[in-house]
């Protein structure tokens, strides 16, 4: 039996989940959080979403979407245009090439994998930005942001796992 228009619309909406959640994570990353002691540092929530969806639903998370999300991240974070796009695309490709290893792994492996990729991504970003500004940028804040993102990883990852199970398992 052919699906009705309503069913088809619903399915399309479900298929937008990876894009929608990443977008929301990006914007939530720049909103002022009521958490003291972080010292003006925000975790890279967007990178968590890019990592997660590149492993779990690359069919719904195409390079074009990754690229555009990166551009948006540059816009809202006042980074040079193309920087996050470059980092996101590189992370997406890196994760895809190792996808067989990640799929079906226990959570601790998913977390360790993220820690490694986050560090590589941040160092890469730091190098590109230093080259862009033609001077070495401070490295400590980079390390702090990477650590903060790695530490909070389970929370956003849990949200994504729940969403994937409840929304995409039926689609």
């Amino acid at each position, binding site marked *: 039996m052919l699906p009705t228009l309503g069913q088809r619309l619903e399915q399309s909406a479900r298929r937008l989940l990876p894009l929608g959640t990443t977008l929301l994570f990006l914007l939530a990353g720049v909103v002022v959080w009521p958490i003291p002691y972080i010292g003006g540092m925000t975790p890279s929530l967007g990178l968590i979403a890019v990592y997660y969806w590149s492993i779990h639903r690359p069919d719904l998370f195409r390079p074009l979407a990754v690229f555009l999300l990166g551009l948006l991240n540059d816009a*809202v974070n006042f980074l040079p*245009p193309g920087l996050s796009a470059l980092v996101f695309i590189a992370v997406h490709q890196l994760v895809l090439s190792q996808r067989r290893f990640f799929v079906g792994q226990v959570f601790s492996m998913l977390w360790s994998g993220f820690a490694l990729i986050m560090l590589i991504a941040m160092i890469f970003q730091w190098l590109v930005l230093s080259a862009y500004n033609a001077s070495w*940028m401070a490295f400590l804040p980079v390390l702090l*942001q990477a650590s903060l993102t790695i530490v909070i990883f389970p929370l956003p990852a849990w949200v994504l796992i729940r969403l994937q199970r409840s929304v995409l398992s039926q689609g």
Partner: protein
Amino acid sequence: MPVRLHRTEWVTTTAISWRQVVHRFSFVFFLLLAVGLLVLGRSHPILIEHARTRVIDTLAPVLDALARPMTLAEDVTRRATNYLQLQSQNEKLRAENTQLVQWQNAALSLENENKELRSLLNYKTEPHLTYISARVIADAGGPFVRSLVVTAGKVDGVREGMAAMTGEGLIGRVIEAGDWSSRILLITDLNSRIPVTISGSGDHAILAGNNAPLPKLLYLPQDALLTPGARVMTSGHGGVFPPNLPVGVVTSTSHGTAEITPLAALERINQVRLIDFNLAGGAFNPIAARIDADARK
């Protein structure tokens, strides 16, 4: 013996390799596009900044909607803590109030004296100030940039170069004004340079941000005497800020440089006041300002 592929098998194999080629191609394409954009951003920064202001202006309602529950949550937490500390806070405030009444008396008599002396000297008064209050909707607190986006733009009268302050002191200045939102470069940002003077000694220096929580003083005179706790104010040089806006306090000194603790808690700002001092040096683009002024005539 050569193996002959069945037709369906052949189609699948070709499809997979074709998809791989497309994928590889799109990866390289987007990688090059990102690098191209970086190069374009380096050679045409103004073009890119305008595009960015447009994007943020469009996103401002979404960011505002996301920021509201956060502000509410912070408000609730603050109220709860306030309630718990009611007794001790009350006592502290009473003591502070007695002290402030004394200060008020002193200020009133000084104001009178000042007025009399000014009339004696025929002193020209400061230009009229314009205040705009705005709420913070985004805080780019990454390791590379320190800036805020606030809910007030050209429509509300914001212009580039306005000083951004909280009750405590100067936090930065408006460097991009969109229609509905504007961007404030914090004094801790790597690109922030503010001419300051140290109260007490009167030494001049440049307060330079370095993306870390404590900005530094540069170009201090060799014989500068810095004591931790000395207040740092704007000097008014360069014409961007008027003199004597409170900025911070000297925290540590070593080898002709000093770290400054900003008076405002920069990591937790919800409300800012944008102040137009009507100074000529405030605008980034003097030509655009002149065209603007001509149009108003």
